[in-house]
């Protein structure tokens, strides 16, 4: 038996995906299946006065049409049930006859073919009474603003304050103060596979949904709630998943697929129902990265000590809550940066508007908060006349230092080392203080080169008091020696290679060869709750669950149990929520990842194009279970963050999505990604992580945008406080017109 962790073993799913054998939900067909089409609201804010499905029902080939009156408990929401499953009259849910964004779902048509379903959908007659459309999250906070949810007092969904020290006194001590309003954009996940899947009744009579998701057991719970059925009557299976990035954290087609299977079965119709969303349906139908308005006022002394950090943070939550608690929670922490500051004052809000809901997206609010924090750091360094790396090294938190919530980070803070490692790789030197000579050579008089630096931290898992958990079962088969290990685990492989890593960790934990491990994964019928494949948590959580289960199973093996079977539910160290008055939190999170980036850009000052030349990313991952996968995650994250910073321009006008196709929502092509990405994988063990693992797959996102704007500033002398850095925005910033 050889060591299996720390090795770049090939992905177990590679062959099937490369040859096309692997089935994604949209590829799966079941005998006698019917097809579903959803009627979307396609208007941002209205009351449905009447809904007439009779013409649709009467069309030949239509099997059924479902509306709000067919949903047993017509509500949904991961953190609060504020969204109707189907909008319209006829359910008990108050105000469910309202539509609040263009992607709200009104009806599901089930028919013999997708074409008939689409035709019938267009025959549904809806009478809308339009309501004023709320698009500005700042104005939406006003007490006289149109309310999205009349059963709530305000459009302000959440408010988190942080109070530490005396920020006004801090400003008095400051020699320099930087005050800026930052605006960060919405972003589409743009996964390769649009939402698709099947709903049916399985052999054991369970309402079953086969879809791509990130947390099968949460989906199971949400479906059980909406259908008012016991949990064990619901089954969720995740086949191969074509990307997620947080975009599958919330539910999309799961509820209507389950509803259709359940109601058809009641009527004695035993037919699976299949839905495949078009790209346009996917773009209007699932949530986006929250746009943020952040007003920051920070002060520092001439000697380079940060003395005050005040921020007001407003997140556009769109129509429904989705995961705004988590997204805003992280931004609230990260907006003050991983720096020592005696006086911190933050007020952050998530606000309802008639935009597509804001929700989970790689980094969960971290990139937005860090954009303001790191930009403030870079600007302060500039006005003090200090190198940005030197300024960070004078303020960065180390073991024992308090952050904004008046408690230290868990032991093993390595950001200082990460910053230094990245800086050295990016051409910085320490001669007494940190500095870098020159900024590279301009290509010509119009194409200017610049170098930018930023750093960041982000929590692993949801935390802030959330009861994190992860379950695993290990079976050891054989007689005198272990011949086969079976691992049951619910964790979704969203394309990041989780299942390969599970297998590596199980082999290591049991002490057998990699090939002896078999997986039973991603099906609520054969696994317990593992939590979500998101928030950089799955390797960390699954590893600890697998280790726990393996230890117990090996004990049973010693006791001659054959097969030896053990399950283990891992709970990480308990965390605490923000204090509602001061934001104080003894342990907001149980673990963190640390990251720093140097980015080199060329700015074409005539056309406004920003070209990414070099990205150097140093990421403390704790332990790389599969180094090739870790580098793959860094590179993928860099490409996605590059789109966010430079290219991707999600436009909503009056609540309508203007960029619902890939011809006008532009994501990076191979010509747009950085010329070079240097991934520096640092391995300082986390005290709690399995084999020292920290989470890592969101980290490169955190400092990316502010490192790019710092590089553009270095090249042109202009700070950009809004992005993406489209050619037009850049030229306007440069004063070209």
């Amino acid at each position, binding site marked *: 038996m050889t060591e299996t962790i720390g090795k770049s073993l090939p992905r177990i799913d590679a062959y099937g995906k490369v040859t096309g054998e692997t089935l994604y939900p949209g590829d799966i067909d079941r005998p006698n299946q019917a097809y579903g089409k959803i009627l979307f609201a396609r208007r941002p804010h209205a009351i449905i006065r009447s809904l007439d499905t009779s013409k649709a029902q009467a069309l030949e080939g239509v099997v059924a049409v479902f509306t709000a009156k067919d949903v047993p408990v017509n509500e949904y929401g991961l953190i609060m049930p504020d969204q109707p499953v189907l909008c319209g009259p006829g359910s008990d849910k108050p105000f469910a006859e309202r539509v609040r964004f263009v992607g709200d779902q009104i009806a599901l048509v089930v028919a013999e073919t997708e*074409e*008939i379903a*689409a*035709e019938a959908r*267009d025959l549904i007659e809806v009478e809308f009474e339009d309501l004023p459309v709320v698009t500005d999250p700042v104005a939406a906070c006003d007490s006289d603003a149109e309310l999205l949810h009349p059963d709530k007092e305000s459009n302000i969904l959440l408010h988190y304050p942080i109070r530490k020290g005396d920020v006004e006194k801090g400003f008095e001590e400051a020699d320099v103060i930087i005050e800026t309003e930052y605006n960060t954009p919405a972003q589409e996940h743009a996964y390769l596979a649009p939402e698709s899947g099947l709903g049916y009744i399985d052999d054991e009579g369970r309402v079953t949904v086969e879809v791509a998701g990130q947390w099968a057991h949460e989906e199971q719970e949400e479906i059980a709630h909406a259908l008012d059925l016991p949990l064990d009557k619901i089954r969720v299976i995740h086949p191969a998943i074509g990307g997620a990035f947080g975009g599958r954290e919330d539910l999309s087609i799961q509820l209507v697929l389950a509803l259709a299977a359940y109601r058809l079965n009641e009527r004695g119709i035993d037919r699976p129902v299949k839905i495949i969303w078009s790209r346009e349906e996917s773009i209007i139908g699932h949530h986006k990265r929250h746009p943020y308005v952040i007003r920051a006022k920070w002060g520092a002394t001439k000697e380079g000590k940060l003395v005050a950090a005040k921020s007001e943070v407003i997140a556009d939550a769109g129509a429904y809550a989705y995961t705004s608690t988590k997204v805003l929670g992280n931004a609230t922490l990260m907006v003050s940066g991983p720096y020592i500051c005696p006086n911190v004052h933050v007020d952050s809000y998530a606000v309802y508007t008639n935009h597509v809901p804001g929700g989970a997206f790689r980094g969960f609010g971290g990139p937005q908060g860090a954009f303001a924090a790191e930009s403030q750091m870079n600007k302060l360094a500039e006005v003090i006349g200090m190198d940005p790396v030197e300024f960070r090294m004078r303020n960065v938190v180390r073991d024992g230092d308090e952050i904004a919530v008046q408690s230290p980070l868990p032991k093993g803070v390595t950001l200082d080392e990460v910053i230094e490692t990245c800086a050295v790789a990016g051409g910085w030197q320490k001669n007494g203080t940190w500095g870098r000579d020159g900024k590279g050579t301009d290509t*010509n008089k119009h194409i200017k080169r610049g170098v930018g630096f930023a750093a960041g931290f982000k929590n692993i898992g949801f935390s802030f008091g959330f009861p994190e958990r992860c379950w695993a079962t290990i079976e050891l088969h054989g007689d005198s020696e272990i011949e086969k290990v079976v691992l049951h685990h619910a964790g979704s492989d969203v394309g990041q290679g989780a299942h390969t890593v599970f297998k590596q960790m199980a082999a290591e934990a049991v002490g057998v060869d990699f090939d002896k491990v078999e997986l039973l994964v991603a099906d609520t019928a054969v696994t317990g709750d593992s939590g979500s494949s998101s928030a950089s948590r799955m390797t960390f959580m699954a590893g600890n669950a697998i280790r726990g289960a393996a230890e117990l199973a090996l004990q049973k093996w010693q006791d001659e149990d054959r097969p030896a079977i053990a399950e283990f539910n891992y709970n990480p160290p308990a965390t605490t929520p923000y204090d509602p008055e001061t934001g104080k939190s003894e342990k907001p999170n149980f673990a963190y990842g640390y990251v720093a980036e140097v980015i080199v850009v060329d700015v074409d000052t*005539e*056309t*406004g194009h920003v070209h990414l030349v070099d990205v150097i990313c140093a990421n403390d991952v704790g332990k790389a279970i599969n180094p090739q996968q870790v580098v793959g995650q860094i590179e993928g994250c860099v490409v996605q963050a590059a789109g966010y910073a430079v*290219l991707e*321009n999600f*436009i909503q006008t009056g609540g309508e999505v*203007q*960029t619902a196709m890939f*011809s*006008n929502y*532009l994501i*990076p*092509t*191979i*010509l*747009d990604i950085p010329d070079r990405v240097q991934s520096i994988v640092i391995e300082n063990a986390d005290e709690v992580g399995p084999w020292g693992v920290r989470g890592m797959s969101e980290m490169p996102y955190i400092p990316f945008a502010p490192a790019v704007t710092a590089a553009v500033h270095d090249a042109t002398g202009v700070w950009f406080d809004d992005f993406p850095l*489209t*050619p*037009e925005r850049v*030229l306007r910033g440069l004063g*070209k*017109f």
Partner: protein
Amino acid sequence: MMHELRLETPRSLAEASRILKETGGKVIAGGTDVIPQMRDGRFEANTLIDLSRLPDLDTIKEEGDFIVIGALANYTSIRQSQLLQETVPMLLEVAGLVGGLQTQNRGTIGGNVVNASPAGDTLPPLLALNAEVVLNNSDGERTIPLSDFLQGPGQTAIAPHELLSEIRFQKPPAGTKSTFLRLGNRRGMVISIVSAATMLLLDGGNKIEEVRIALGAVAPIPIRCPEAEALLQGQVLTEALIEQAAEMTVKAGSPIDDVRGTATYRQHGIKVLVRRGLLKLGGLR
């Protein structure tokens, strides 16, 4: 919205013309415009007439002083044409910028011309070349200048039962240089916000014998810049003169704001692209 769709696959231009006259169907070649239009319900037709099996309409050849490009020539064949590389290299540049490889393998120059998008990338180079289009119907054919053919966004002088069969232009004199430049919000697979085709022939003493400038995506149809061309004609090419001409071309356009860019950005872009084009062709940068 659901209906039967008949697919006709004529094997000769005459047969295609006859079917077109009989059915009034929608003509399809590579399908890179028609299929998305169909999916979005932007036209109604009971018959699709697939031209892709017509013989000889995909050739690129010399006919006397003329170069003739068959309407069915796709971007890949343009990109790989030795003849075009020697005579009109900007057509290779433009063909290599349209979509990705799959689109270049399917999309045809005839389709781009008939689609008449203000941002159609082959149109500025063809306008600069003073290209003509050959139109056929069951009674015969006619040849008209491309500048008359293009009438507005998606609008052309093609008659209801006509087919575009060829695009022809005079071979530029030896020594003529040409380039196609464009601005988009990303580097590839993008619809142009502004484009510019520039042709230049200098005599031995850096004097301009012939210059042509055409712009895309800045007016309802791609346009030429006659004032700037007149300014340059017969002059010695200098950076100062180029700057003056580039300023002048801005006035030729009448751009609009759309989701890709504002009129202001387009006006700025015209100047940048014309300047860069002339500097490049003149060997000044």
